[in-house]
């Protein structure tokens, strides 16, 4: 066993089998990040300049916007999470794959599903349910591909070297188990054999809430729980309490979705359950924050590094939970306003994307035996992403409040809410442009590292695992 302070370079058979699949998942994820940012930027500009490219159906806002959202969720965040998640499972368990080819084929198949799905939305055969816009054929491809991807998470966990399971492994297992269940349920009941309209609202809200809190969030939390102790070379703070946080998050995450329908055409208890779950989520989020932030010290955060991404990501996680818990206070004004888009920006771009970017920057040198990004590059990536996400979130949140008051006040005409939101939407669109630039810069730097190292020997750096730092 190596001491925490002296990382060694040794060849690990198991982890090496993941090298190519993980590189493939990350490369395609970064590609979809660029596509998603481009479509997102375009839709943001269309919001302020409605006559921009308005002559063709496939470029209309109502198709570009869901295309962007789906590209970011299924193309970028899901794939980056899958790749990094499997990699972390292999590292924590010192296990490998039986067949890297099967996983790579499944990954390509997943990308095919995303590509066809995006095309189906743009072509006008998408379904108008959030997160389920992909055509039935693409959704089927995603599920089939997932079956061949997700199974490896169980294989890696089963073949792990040590008996105990680290908190990252719990979260990853949760994500990998829940995704097929919730995606299949939602497609089955809303798309393939749709239930009657009266039941669709709560099921769609449940799906969207679960997609965030039981698929994306646990994957990203697992990565943060893994990488923070690696960076700071000391154990998580108050590690035993993370068990409580874990179960609470899985339980409450499942219920939180219906708060989107507060006051809506569903039984009041369903919406109340969602609000109550969102409030109670403060408890696990507090524990997660203590676990992760408590491990940091001033020394670790003095310069912008991969860790800065993760720190900002975790801060956004905490902020998103606080926003969710504040629902009953602000909902009357914010419910259908741009503030609600801001909530999604905070989660999908702030929490999920920032953490994943940091984790990719961290994984890159360990996957390629290259130095990865230089300190200067990482710092530039960090500030440009942080600036753009912050601008987008801030503009939507403040603009949403003005717009929301106009929407709420019975004396105000609807059109005033558009006028009030407009300057903030302009700022949001500028943020979107910077996000697109940041994504392209990140993708170029990523491609440079991958292309110059794709043929390097399969030697990987193995640092001591968090279990070795923490007495579990």
């Amino acid at each position, binding site marked *: 066993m190596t001491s925490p302070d002296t990382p060694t370079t040794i060849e690990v058979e198991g982890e090496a089998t993941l090298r190519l699949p993980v590189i493939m998942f990350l490369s395609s994820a970064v590609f979809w990040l660029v596509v998603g940012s481009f479509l997102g930027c375009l839709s943001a500009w269309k919001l302020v300049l409605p006559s921009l490219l308005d002559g063709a159906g496939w470029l209309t806002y109502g198709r570009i916007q869901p295309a962007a959202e789906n590209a970011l969720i299924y193309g970028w965040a899901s794939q980056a999470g899958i790749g990094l998640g499997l990699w972390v499972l292999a590292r924590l368990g010192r296990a490998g794959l039986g067949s890297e080819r099967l996983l790579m084929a499944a990954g390509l198949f997943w990308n095919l599903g995303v590509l066809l799905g995006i095309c189906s939305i743009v072509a006008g055969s998408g379904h108008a349910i959030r997160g389920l816009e992909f055509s039935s054929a693409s959704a089927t491809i995603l599920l089939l591909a997932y079956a061949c991807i997700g199974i490896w998470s169980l294989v890696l966990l089963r073949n792990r070297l040590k*008996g105990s399971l680290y908190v990252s492994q719990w979260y990853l297992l949760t994500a990998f188990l829940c995704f097929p269940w919730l995606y299949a349920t939602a497609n089955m009941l809303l798309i393939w054999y749709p239930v009657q309209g*009266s039941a*669709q609202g709560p099921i769609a809200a449940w799906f969207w809430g679960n997609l965030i809190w039981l698929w994306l969030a646990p994957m990203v939390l697992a990565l943060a729980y893994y990488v923070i102790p690696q960076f700071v070379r000391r154990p998580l703070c108050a590690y035993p309490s993370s068990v409580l946080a874990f179960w609470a998050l899985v339980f409450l995450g499942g219920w939180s979705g219906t708060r989107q329908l507060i006051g809506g055409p569903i039984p009041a208890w369903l919406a109340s359950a969602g609000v109550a779950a969102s409030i109670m989520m403060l408890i696990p989020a507090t524990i997660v924050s203590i676990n992760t932030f408590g491990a940091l010290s001033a020394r670790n955060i003095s310069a912008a590094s991969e860790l800065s991404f993760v720190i900002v990501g975790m801060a956004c996680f905490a902020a998103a939970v606080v926003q969710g818990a504040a629902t009953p206070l602000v909902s009357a004004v914010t419910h259908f306003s741009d503030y609600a888009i801001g909530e999604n920006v905070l989660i999908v771009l702030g929490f999920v994307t920032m953490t994943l970017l940091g984790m990719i920057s961290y994984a890159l040198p360990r996957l390629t035996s290259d130095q990865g990004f230089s300190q200067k590059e990482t710092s530039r990536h960090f500030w440009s992403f942080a600036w753009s996400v912050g601008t987008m979130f801030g503009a939507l949140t403040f603009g949403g409040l003005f717009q929301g008051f106009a929407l709420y006040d019975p004396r105000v005409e609807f059109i005033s809410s558009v006028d009030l939101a407009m300057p903030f939407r302009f700022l949001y669109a500028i943020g979107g442009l910077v996000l697109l630039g940041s994504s392209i810069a990140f993708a170029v730097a990523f491609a440079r590292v991958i292309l110059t190292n794709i043929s390097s020997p399969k030697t990987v750096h193995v640092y001591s695992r968090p279990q070795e730092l923490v007495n579990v």
Partner: protein
Amino acid sequence: MSKLAQLVFGVFAVFAIAWWGVVGYSYLQLGRMQPVLDENTGEVNPPPFSGLAAAGQQVYAANGCVSCHTQQVRSGAFSTDVEKKLGPRPTVARDYLRDAPAFLGHLRIGPDLTNVGLRSSDPNWFHAHLYEPQTVTPGSNMPSYRYLYRMRRIAGQPSIEAVTGLKGPYAPQAGYEVVPTEQARVLVAYLLSLKRNYPLPEAEPLQ
């Protein structure tokens, strides 16, 4: 049981609780709601969609109208929807019984459309608005849906379907007319059908 098996079982169980509570409940209760007969008028509520309106629903879905428009009049302390006259009463689950899919929406970038058929019954108004929104509603940030219309030279008599009163840069020149495609026709039929002002046992319209 191994540690891994315990964890798998635990996650399944915890996930299943919310799955059953939200999805199972919705499926079994809300999913089996029935239309009701209004004994005063002899009508069945909510009324069924016409064939055109049902087709228009798919055009509404395909063009992502739901990205900007809600279709729900909320009740309770969290909303002023009824005071804002979005409808004569809050909508309830039964209102969406025949919707496929139910376009509840989540943003009001544009106005709520639950009762848009009550606000105007003139198909030409809808066509002109879809064709070039800013000329009908100044300051609107709705994009144009010109691609659902065809501009053509008038051959003989002008079409009775031709959209009248168009202004702005895309208005037809003399000798030309703008006619809706099948998609625009059914979309407007759908929008005109959006009237949730009928009484339901659980939601009587306010006087």
